C-alpha cells in the first residue's frame, strides 16, 4: 500500500514505514534510547532525503519518548531534577549544534561528518558498554559487585545539588556538560542522544540503572522537540505524514518495549544495547571505507 509523502516528495510503502516505526519504538521503550540512531539511517536507506529523515525522525522520537516516559513516571523511575539539569545543558548544546550543521552543510561535508560522528560515538560507546556489561555479568555470577564509588575529582567540583531519586549528591557541572554534548549530537545526527546519555549517566554520573532509562526518555522529549522545531523552521524538512505513520508504529512498539525491558536485568539490557550500537557503527564504518557505487553526488538548490 503506497502513500505519497508531501515534504519528502516520494511515494512510500505505508506498512513498511509502520513496521519501521514499531521496531524502533520497541527498542526505544526497552533501552530508553530515542532510537533515532537507527531510524535516521534506515529512513535514508529507504530513500527519504537526509534532511527530511533527520527532521522527521525527531518527531517519532518525541512521541515514543513521551509514551515511554509516562510509563516510567508511573513506576517512579524518572529523576526530574536530574532531567532538567541535563536539559538545560542540552538546549545550549543544540543551538551550537545547529549552527555547526548549517556551516558543514555549506561546506558540503555534512554527510561525511554525520557518518564519522556516528561511527566514532557508536563504536566507542558500544565497545565500552559491552566490556563493562560482560564484566558485570561475570561479577554477578561470582557473586561480587561490579560497581565502584565515584571518581575523586567529582567531589571537588562546586555547585553541588542533591538528586534524591538518583541517590546522588554531586556538582551540577558534569550533568550540564553531558547535556550540552548530547544537545550537539541531537542537532547534527537527528537523534535524541539517549545512546550517549544512558552510558554517561551510568558510568560517569553513577546513577542507578533503574532511573537512567526514564530520566533519559524524559529529557529526550524536550531535546528532540527543540531540534525538530529548528529543522522545521530552518530547512522545511519535517514531513507531517511520514511523522504520523512512524509515530503510530512507534508508540505501540515503545509500550511493548518498556514491558520487555522491565523483565531484563540491568547488565543483560546493557549488553544487548551495546551489541546493537556496535552493529550500527560497524555498518556505517563499512560504508565510509567501501568504494561508493558512484563517486559523484548531486545536490540541488530549490528542492527539498
Amino acid at each position, binding site marked *: 500500500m503506497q502513500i505519497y509523502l*508531501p515534504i519528502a*516528495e516520494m511515494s512510500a510503502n505505508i506498512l513498511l514505514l509502520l513496521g519501521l516505526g514499531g521496531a524502533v519504538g520497541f527498542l526505544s521503550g526497552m533501552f530508553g534510547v530515542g532510537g533515532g540512531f537507527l531510524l535516521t539511517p534506515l529512513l535514508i536507506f529507504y530513500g527519504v532525503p537526509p534532511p527530511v529523515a533527520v527532521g522527521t525522525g525527531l518527531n517519532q522520537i*518525541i512521541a515514543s519518548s513521551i509514551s515511554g516516559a509516562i510509563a516510567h513516571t508511573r513506576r517512579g523511575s524518572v529523576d526530574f531534577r536530574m532531567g532538567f539539569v541535563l536539559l538545560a545543558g542540552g538546549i545550549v548544546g543544540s543551538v551550537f549544534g545547529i549552527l555547526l550543521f548549517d556551516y558543514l552543510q555549506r561546506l558540503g561535508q555534512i554527510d561525511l561528518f554525520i557518518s564519522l560522528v556516528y561511527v566514532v560515538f557508536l563504536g566507542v560507546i558500544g565497545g565500552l558498554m559491552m566490556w563493562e556489561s560482560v564484566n558485570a555479568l561475570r561479577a554477578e555470577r561470582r557473586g561480587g559487585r561490579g560497581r565502584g564509588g565515584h571518581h575523586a575529582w567529582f567531589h571537588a567540583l562546586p555547585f553541588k545539588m542533591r538528586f534524591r531519586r538518583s541517590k546522588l549528591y554531586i556538582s551540577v557541572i558534569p550533568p550540564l556538560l553531558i547535556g550540552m554534548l548530547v544537545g550537539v549530537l541531537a542537532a547534527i545526527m537527528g537523534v535524541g542522544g539517549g545512546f550517549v546519555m544512558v552510558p554517561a549517566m551510568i558510568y560517569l554520573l553513577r546513577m542507578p540503572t533503574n532511573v537512567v532509562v526514564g530520566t533519559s526518555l524524559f529529557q529526550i522529549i524536550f531535546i528532540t522537540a527543540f531540534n525538530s*522545531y529548528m529543522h522545521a523552521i530552518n530547512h522545511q524538512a*519535517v514531513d507531517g505524514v511520514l511523522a504520523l505513520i512512524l509515530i503510530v508504529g512507534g508508540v505501540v512498539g515503545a509500550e511493548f518495549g518498556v514491558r520487555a525491558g522491565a523483565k531484563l536485568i540491568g547488565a543483560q539490557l546493557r549488553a544487548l544495547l551495546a551489541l546493537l550500537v556496535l552493529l550500527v557503527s560497524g555498518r556505517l564504518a563499512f560504508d565510509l571505507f567501501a568504494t561508493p557505487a558512484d*563517486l559523484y553526488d548531486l545536490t540541488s538548490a530549490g528542492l527539498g
Partner: protein
Amino acid sequence: MGTARGIAALAASLLGVALAAAPARADSVLVDLSEHAIAITSSFTGTQILCYGTFESDDPIITTRHDIVLVVRGPSYPITVRKKERVAGIFVNRHAVTFEPMPSYYFVASNRPLLEIASRPRLRRHGIGAEFLNPRPVSGTSVSDAGAGPLAFRPYEEALVRRKSEEGLYMEASGSVILRANLFHTQIPIPANAPVGNYDGTVYLMQDGRILDAQTFSFQIDKTGLERTIYRLAHDLPYLYGLIVIALAAALGFVANLALRQR
C-alpha cells in the same frame, strides 16, 4: 482511463484540425495533451500524460520521412555535483562544481533514434537529448575546483546526467512516438518523484535533420488536498507548522500511553 479519455480527445481534436487546417499552412505541427494539470494526491505513485497531434506538410509525397521529436523540461534549479575521493582510507567530498539552472525533469521522445534524425551539433543547439543538455558551470568556477585536467568539467557534466537518469528524472524514449500518416502520439511519463511546478514542452517536426516547425505546450504538476495544505504550511508558516507537528507527536504519545494502559 487517462488513455481512453485521451483518445476521445484525440479524435475530437483531429476532426477540428482537419476542418481548421483547410488552407494548409506549409510544414506545421499541432499538439495537445490529455491532461494539463497533474494533481498529486496521497495515493500518487506516478502517472502518464498522453501527448497527441498532427502535422501538415506542403510536400505530402515524402510525408513518411518526417520525424517527430518531443522534449519536456521540468522547473530548473542550479545543481551542485560533488566528487568523492579517498582520503586516508575513507571517501570524502573533495571537489564540487555548481552548474547554471538545469531542468529538474527532462524527457525526450522520438519516432526513431535521435542520432538518425539529426546531427549532433543540431541536437546540441536545441538541447534535444539528455547528453546534449550542455550543463554550464556557474561563472567563477575554475578548473581547479573540479580537480586537475583540461577536460575537468566533463566527468561532472556526465555525472549530472547519469545521476538524474538513475533517479528516473532524465528519460529518453526513442521510438516511443507513434507515427500514423500525419498523426502522432506518445506518452509522457511522470514519476512519483517528479518535482512540482511548471513543465514546458516542445514538439519538433523534422525532416532530413532540419526543423520544419515547432510547437510548445505546457502542463502543471501540483499537490492537492491535504498534501498541498501540508506542503504550503511547511513552507509558508514553518513557525506554526513546526509547533503543530510537535503537538501532534506529543498528543499521540499521550493517547497511545493511555490506550495501552487499559488492559
